[in-house]
């Protein structure tokens, strides 16, 4: 844990690089692995994959509905397709294909939402993907995984390739420090223990939650940090334990709080047996103003300082 926090000030990583590296390694060992994309060879970081496996990179052009359908057809024919596109377009434009062709049809497609959240900062709300978690959580049978750093991204890619079921993988572009040592599907990782309040974070917010916990310790508040990298199915036991043992919950996500991680956690918290105070950090049904990602995370109260403030306030009732 101390290593994780120490690295916060150090090197940061674009998770797409880890994603692409792992995908190539898997593809070398298993010729069922293919990539499908929507003119996003560059933005999905698939250039090296294309070079090594030109026949196994199916670029359908700027056509997300087709892309997801083609992925489903490949999956139903025994291939393991990683369907890659910028998350706003993959999930927004092809939502019905994700529901009907992938989830409802039990087609084991790995949907890779690249550059999610507000990674495309200045490009604006059309290119932000803060709704993806909310939309996809409503779809039965679709696992949702949000890795927090390169190691977790690599492990999640490897897990997804063998999962044999529909998966949405949210692959970050905004650079993050290394904070995990891998991925366990369906299990929240307790990256730091604490007794006064729990921060449940996902994706880009995990390293910030760890930094917030360090800051809160200076205020005399003991913060537990859960890396909730599997959003669906949710690790409800970890949440119930946090409720029982720490008595207050903060959630942090680079996404809308309407239906995302916060809403998922809240549903467990209010179900009891003893509801506790809770605060949801994220975007509250707003389109972002102009600005780069770091600015927008600050604008929406998603810095380590903001998480610390919420945790300290809740812990003091």
């Amino acid at each position, binding site marked *: 844990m101390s290593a994780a926090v120490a690295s916060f000030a150090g090197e940061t990583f674009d998770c797409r690089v880890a994603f692409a590296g792992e995908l190539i390694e898997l593809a070398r060992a298993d010729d069922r692995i*293919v990539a*499908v994309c929507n003119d996003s060879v560059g933005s999905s970081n698939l250039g090296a994959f294309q070079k090594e496996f030109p*026949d*196994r990179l*199916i670029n*359908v*052009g700027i*056509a997300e*509905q*087709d*892309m*997801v*359908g*083609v*992925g*489903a*057809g*490949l*999956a*139903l*024919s*025994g*291939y393991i*397709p990683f369907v890659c596109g910028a998350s706003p377009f993959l999930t927004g434009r092809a939502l*019905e*294909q994700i529901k*009907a*062709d992938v989830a*409802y*049809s*039990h*087609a084991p497609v790995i949907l890779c939402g690249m550059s999610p959240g507000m990674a495309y900062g200045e490009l604006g709300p059309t290119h932000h993907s803060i709704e993806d978690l909310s939309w996809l959580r409503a779809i039965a049978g679709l696992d949702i995984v949000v890795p927090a750093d390169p190691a977790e991204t690599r492990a999640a890619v490897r897990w997804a390739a063998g999962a044999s079921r529909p998966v949405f993988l949210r692959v970050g572009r905004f650079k993050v420090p290394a904070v995990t040592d891998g991925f366990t599907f369906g299990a929240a990782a307790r990256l730091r223990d604490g007794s006064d309040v729990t921060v449940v974070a996902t994706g880009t917010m995990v390293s910030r939650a760890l930094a917030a916990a360090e800051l809160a310790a200076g205020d005399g508040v003991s913060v537990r940090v859960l890396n909730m990298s599997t959003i669906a199915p949710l690790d409800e036991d970890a949440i119930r334990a946090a409720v029982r043992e720490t008595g207050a919950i903060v959630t942090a996500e680079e996404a809308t709080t309407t239906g995302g991680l916060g809403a998922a956690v809240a549903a467990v918290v209010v179900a009891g047996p003893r509801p506790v105070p809770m605060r949801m950090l994220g975007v509250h049904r707003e389109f972002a103003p102009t600005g780069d990602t770091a600015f927008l995370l600050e604008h929406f109260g998603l810095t380590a300082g903001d998480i610390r403030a919420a945790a300290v306030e809740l812990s003091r009732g």
Partner: protein
Amino acid sequence: MLVADPATAAAWRRFREEFAAAGPDERRELLRARANRSRSTDLAMIGRAGLGHVGGDLSVLDILTTLFFAVLRVDPEQPEWPDRDRFVLSKGHTAGALYTTLAAAGFFAEDELRTFAGPHSALNGHPNRTKVPGVETNTGPLGHGLPVAVGMAVAGRLASSDRHVYVVLGDGELQEGSNWEAAMTAGHRRLSNLTAVVDRNRLQQGARTEDTAALDPLGDKWRAFGWDVVELDGHDHLALLGAFTAPRGDRPVCVIANTIKGRGVSFMEDRVEWHHKVPSAEQITAATAELAR
């Protein structure tokens, strides 16, 4: 998941053998009679359930019968056989036509048709591959079948398999843009292992296609997207068979099958209200008598 009916599957195999050995007139009669039996079964099923898409079922049944009883390389007793031909019904609302055809081929017992649309039936109003053998992907929302079929054709190529992918599309459905994304992909990749059949009955739910959002010149559209196009009478079984078995070029093929919605039942033919109207018992009796001729 429903399971195969071995006796019916054996009868289906005998039909295929008899068909292969038959001359043209006999072949035409074999498929005509088989399709009309499916029409009667479908009408009875819809009457029992009190719902269904009768008009489109009747227009597509000659296409489905020709495919399943004379063309598709499938095995009802091994529905997951990896090198089988793939069949996708994109116009999923005509699930009734597919169910009656699959049951007639022995993919599952014909008795199951009695459960159509009932509580917990495997036979939902739109087909579900996790419950019904012979269904390759879940359809219902329009514009979904062709992209999935394109993915299956790409998979066939990657696997160096000679299996073929057939997808049946409604004509009204072609108003969905996703079809044209997929048509572009198939044309660009020269997927000659893919055949799309358009059930061109010229009626959509509310009106004629040409009065709603015109599709013509439909053949030119497909040709412009890089497909070879065959236009034919979609109730002429031998014409369909000829198109499905003709030597292939290096492009995907679109068969524009000109059909009549409600085909085979005089009072339903080409009438928009029979998109999903349910026939009365008397109407079913009259229709069945017509189809038995």
